[in-house]
């Protein structure tokens, strides 16, 4: 099919698909069409094997053991940290703290930085397209410190409304927390402009990279962001992997968050002294095997090339927007595919997204229906939920066709 070739120019998707065992599953006799990678991606055998191999060959606790297995485990774990740093353009691996993902990372910052540096009357600037994981931790921090939350609103076509940026971003603003890519609208936010504006008033910037990093990549030096949170399971890695980039001087200034295990230097009855960064923030046995396998996911993405990943997603997203519009779906989020990552939220006719997802499921098509942990977005656009299809390296335009075809089925049930 000419269209396929052209639109997927970037990646050899057929070969990629062979690496993902789950993609050969059938659902009620129909091939699985997995369109929910924004929720969690699938894992290639390279990643699955890396975790298995860790257990079968090298399993030991990192940073605690003198014997060979312990050294191997430590090398693999710290090797994954170095890989992660390189992937994000961070020159210093010790600016990477491992966590189980974006949510834990944001909470870490909201505690270890927020509880220490926020004061009554300080402002935290969020956006209405933040995921709950980048809202609720700040609500807690505001409650505990007396800081105040402010929000950048949204335009009708799903962009950040920057018309009152100057009024909202002031010297009172201590931190701007903004997603690099919305998981419900697909919007790619103008990070360079926002980060520059925030730094100009002396505010720090936390980028929620849960979607940005897997789909567009990120370079923390070019962005000059202060914090970047990301989830391994959304970028082909295992659940329980991911982390936080933070500028080193911030990590050093922050208090520890979780206590225990290897984050200490010395423990006395009434107080303790702490390890250097990043280990100061890694309390207890970490998700060692998972971070090691996360390293394999990074290898996989680097071998594909993030430019090609992005090209592929742009092509498939453009195609999906086109086809869904054709059949009359109402699409939420930007129409310009240059600022619309590989996530498409929509309503099809009057079919409730929940019903739509059930019907599509019968056709083997897995989409998500719900508020996507974006209730402020739902309220902004006056819907309780949306249907959402999202794309990653293994998705094809044929799968978009399958989605559109399945929509016809929904129509026939409901009319």
């Amino acid at each position: 099919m000419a269209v396929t070739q052209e639109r997927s120019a970037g990646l050899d998707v057929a070969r990629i698909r062979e690496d993902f065992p789950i993609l050969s599953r059938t659902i009620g006799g129909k091939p699985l069409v997995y369109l929910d990678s924004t929720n969690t991606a699938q894992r290639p055998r390279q990643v699955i094997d890396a975790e298995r191999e860790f257990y079968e060959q090298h399993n030991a606790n990192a940073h605690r053991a003198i014997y060979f297995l312990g050294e191997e485990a430590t090398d693999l774990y710290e090797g994954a940290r170095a890989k992660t740093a390189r992937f994000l353009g961070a020159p210093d691996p010790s600016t990477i703290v491992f966590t189980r993902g974006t949510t834990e990372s944001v909470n870490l910052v909201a505690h270890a930085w927020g509880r220490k540096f926020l004061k009554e009357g300080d402002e935290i600037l969020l956006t209405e397209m933040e995921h709950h994981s980048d809202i609720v931790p700040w609500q807690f921090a505001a409650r505990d410190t007396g800081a105040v939350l402010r929000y950048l609103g949204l335009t009708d076509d799903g962009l950040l409304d920057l018309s009152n940026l100057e009024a909202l971003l002031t010297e009172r603003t201590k931190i701007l927390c903004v997603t690099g890519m919305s998981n419900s609208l697909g919007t790619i936010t103008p990070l360079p402009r926002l980060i520059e504006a925030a730094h100009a008033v002396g505010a720090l910037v936390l980028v929620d990279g849960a979607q940005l990093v897997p789909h567009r990549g990120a370079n923390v030096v070019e962005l000059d962001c202060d914090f970047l949170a990301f989830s391994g399971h959304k970028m082909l890695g295992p659940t329980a992997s991911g982390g936080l980039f933070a500028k080193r001087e911030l990590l050093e200034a922050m208090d520890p968050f979780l206590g225990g295990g290897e984050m200490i230097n010395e423990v006395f009855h009434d107080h303790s002294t702490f390890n250097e960064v990043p280990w100061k923030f890694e309390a207890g046995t970490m998700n060692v095997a998972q971070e090691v396998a996360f390293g394999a996911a990074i290898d996989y993405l680097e071998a594909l090339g993030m430019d090609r990943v992005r090209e592929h997603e742009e092509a498939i997203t453009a195609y999906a927007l086109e086809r869904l519009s054709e059949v009359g779906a109402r699409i939420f989020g930007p129409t310009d595919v240059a600022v619309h990552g590989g996530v498409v939220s929509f309503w099809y006719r009057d079919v409730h997204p929940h019903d739509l997802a059930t019907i599509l499921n019968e056709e083997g098509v897995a989409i998500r229906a719900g508020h996507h942990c974006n209730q402020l977005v739902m309220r902004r656009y006056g819907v309780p939920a949306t249907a959402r299809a999202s794309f990653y390296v293994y998705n094809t335009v044929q799968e978009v066709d399958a989605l559109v075809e399945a929509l016809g089925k929904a129509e026939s049930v409901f009319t």
Partner: protein
Amino acid sequence: MPLDDIYKEVILDHYKKPRNKREMPGAERSCSRNNPLCGDEITVFVHEEDGRLADVSFTGQGCSISQSSASMMTEAVGGKSIKEARELIRQFRGMMAGEADPGEDELGDLVALKGVVRYPIRIKCAVLAWDVLQEALGDGEGFASGTSAH
């Protein structure tokens, strides 16, 4: 699994033409809940007379399963005594938990929802209105809405 297991005609009929879908300003009892997973919301109103649910209505929005279940529920419990209503709630829950297999004799139209049992995640939708009714009757929290369990 054939789709008409779940999207039976009677369900779609109640969804498109909900019965008793209206506010009831003078209701002695009313209660609201939502299912955060999908954003479904249901408010149930009960007008009581002589220990009977003389009039039961609902408002809300959501998927066909939650809305049709609410509509059918208002018809099924309307006019019943509180005790009978509780028994119906129990039977309905039993059906949705896959523990009982009541027929039309006991549950009338509601048996159409039996197919939902095969879609575990949708059970919450079907049970939402019943949770609200149970709460309105003062029987404490139900088990399905507002939770991630199923």
